[in-house]
């Protein structure tokens, strides 16, 4: 078995190897027609894409390479159906109908496999190292944790990929981010990602594919790497990746849509060739001292507005330029915070543990372990939304749901819920939410809602204390 390769002797990055292997045809000027190995479809963009395709009198070229599940516009309320959130019912039924017509496998509500697309893909082994994968969702970069080139697309590119199983793309530059050293106790992948974005800014990754490396990344389990890759788009990068290693291979073994038997051995041998070559050149390199990163939360309205939990809120007077000063002031006004104050101790109204950033079994285990018999503060409404039906069932098998319920958390059904807030699940104007999701934009969790992005540990600490709290001191 020979791995696909291009005739080049130069040392190549992980990204280079995967990209080169998928070029169907070079289109000149740095543009390539790239083959897409997997396509994930959800109720919001997938339904629209399948409709668009039908209106253009086109058909799905490779339905066997596409997998669908409803997640964005469905309710997460216990006992929900596809119609519980009335505004999403048309999309839900559309996805079911159009995937059936096209011959695309759908994981429906209540079935193992259903869940947030980027939880579903890896968990079922649909995404594998060395693949190219797209979805009409910017957090598709999450799947790069397995060593795939995975990225979000808009509606037109989605339709293009359904019709042709390819995309017309300009090759991005490569950025390697090394996290040196080991993270401290109580600091996780979410903290590293937020600290990175705070350091480099929310547009540093624009035009780049990011490869994450270094001791802290090697030490991470695959699910934590997904959290890290998930926030690549908040750094501006459409693609984030981690080179496959023994943990990746072990993660995929036995997953229902991963290869089995001899095919697995052949695939794994290929996967082990994908890591960047010694001496491979990256257009940009950054290093972060992982051991110096503290539990990190956002204070403002961009993911770059992130700070250590025990630091003081920035003062617009200290901004680097007028635009930043204005942005910081607007963010403080929207968030109802004062410069130079402590973030710790800020009273919160709601806590949301979920989203494609942090809703996997390891996240829920971490959250449950911190509770230790305590209860959610009286004034806080706290939700746990598992990332998938499989995560939900596995957590229930471990009785994690009992731990959460006993502490006063609401245990809900899998979906995007309050992260995308396209499903009726929003915070009220002015409500302050500590959220394990990935976007703290103005109005993201509802008009006027104030979002603090955080790790599952910081979110649990906030729920129990009723205020933003250092999870290590709690």
């Amino acid at each position, binding site marked *: 078995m020979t791995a*696909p390769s291009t005739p080049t002797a130069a040392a190549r990055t992980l990204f280079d190897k995967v990209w080169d292997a998928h070029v*169907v*045809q070079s289109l000149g000027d740095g*543009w390539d*027609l790239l*083959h897409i190995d997997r396509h994930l479809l959800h109720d919001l*963009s997938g339904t629209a894409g399948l409709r668009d395709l039908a209106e253009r009198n*086109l058909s799905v*070229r*490779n339905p*066997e*390479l596409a997998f669908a599940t409803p997640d*964005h516009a469905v309710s997460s309320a216990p006992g929900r159906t596809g119609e519980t959130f009335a*505004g999403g019912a048309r*999309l839900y039924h559309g996805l079911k109908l159009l995937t059936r017509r096209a011959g695309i496998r759908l994981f429906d509500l209540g079935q*193992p*496999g259903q869940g947030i697309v980027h939880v579903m893909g890896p968990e079922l082994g649909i995404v*594998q190292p*060395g693949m190219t994968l797209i979805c009409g*969702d910017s957090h598709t970069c999450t799947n790069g944790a397995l060593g795939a080139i995975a990225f*979000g*697309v*808009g*509606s*037109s*590119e989605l*339709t293009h990929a359904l*019709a*042709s*199983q390819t995309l*017309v793309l*300009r090759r991005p530059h490569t950025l390697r981010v090394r996290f040196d050293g080991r993270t401290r106790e109580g600091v996780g992948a979410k903290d590293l990602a937020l600290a990175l974005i705070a350091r480099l800014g*929310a*547009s540093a990754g*624009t*035009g780049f594919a990011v490869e994450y490396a270094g001791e802290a990344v090697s030490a991470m389990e695959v699910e934590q790497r997904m959290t890290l890759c998930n926030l690549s*788009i908040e750094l*501006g990068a*459409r693609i984030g990746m981690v080179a496959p290693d023994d943990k990746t291979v072990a993660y995929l073994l036995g997953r*229902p*849509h991963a290869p*089995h038997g001899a*095919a697995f051995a*052949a*695939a794994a041998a290929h996967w082990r060739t994908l890591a960047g070559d010694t001496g491979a050149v990256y257009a940009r390199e950054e290093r972060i001292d992982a051991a110096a990163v503290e539990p990190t939360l956002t204070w403002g309205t*961009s993911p770059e507005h992130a700070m250590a939990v025990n630091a003081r809120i920035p003062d617009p007077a200290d901004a680097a330029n007028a*635009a*930043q000063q*204005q*942005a910081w002031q*607007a963010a403080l006004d929207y968030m109802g915070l004062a410069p130079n104050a402590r973030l710790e101790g800020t009273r919160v109204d709601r806590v949301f543990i979920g989203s494609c950033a942090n809703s996997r079994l390891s996240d829920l285990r971490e959250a449950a372990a911190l509770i230790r018999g305590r209860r959610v503060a009286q004034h806080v409404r706290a939700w746990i939304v598992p990332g998938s039906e499989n995560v939900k069932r596995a957590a229930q098998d471990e009785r994690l749901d009992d731990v959460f319920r006993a502490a006063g958390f609401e245990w809900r059904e899998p979906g995007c819920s309050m992260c995308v*807030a*396209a499903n009726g699940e929003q915070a009220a*104007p002015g409500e302050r939410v500590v959220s394990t999701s990935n*976007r703290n*934009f*103005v*109005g993201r969790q509802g*008009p*006027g809602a104030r979002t603090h992005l955080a790790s599952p540990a910081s979110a649990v600490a906030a729920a129990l204390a009723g205020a933003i709290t250092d999870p290590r001191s709690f």
Partner: protein
Amino acid sequence: MQPFTVLNGAAAALPIDNVDTDVIIRIERLTSLARDDLGPWAFEALRYRPDGGEDPAFVLNQPPWREAPILVAGRNFGCGSSREGAVWALLARGIRCVIAESFGDIFHANCFQNGVLPIRLAPEHIAHAQAACTAGAQWTVDLRSQRITLGDGGTLRFDIDPLRREALLEGLDDIGRTLRLGDAIAAWQARDRTNRPWIWPDTATAPTPI
């Protein structure tokens, strides 16, 4: 797709960095409205006050710029969500050209699929362009000559990928052109079935109902 050749009209300055696609169009509007009806909801969080009334401080609510087809933004315009509805909302609002220091990658790609021209300029040129967004000033953006004539009479040249420029001038999206390459795609797939059989569900994996 409507071709883009020359655009004349007012230019509105929106000197804010990191304007994300949630701010350009809220997701709820996309689940409930047709794309041509999105115009009134573009920049909803910036345009309207909590009581529902227009915020007179927002540039697109001010008479000289209500119909402006050109927007001069800051850094990282269109970051965040992949929703192409952000481009549809701009189009429905009459905006055909956005000039910025940088763009979110997905938004940037989406513009070209809808006949919207995103122009990247260096920070010093952005500052000049924002200052030239004066009331009553008429601009011209000419894609053929890759030149912007600002309201103050100054001109700025801009770069654009030749492939993208050609498609915009002709009003072509990518699909038709790619489907002409069907044989090359079939050949690639045939090779890949041999090289990586495990990738192909019907040959190497046995998905079991779980």
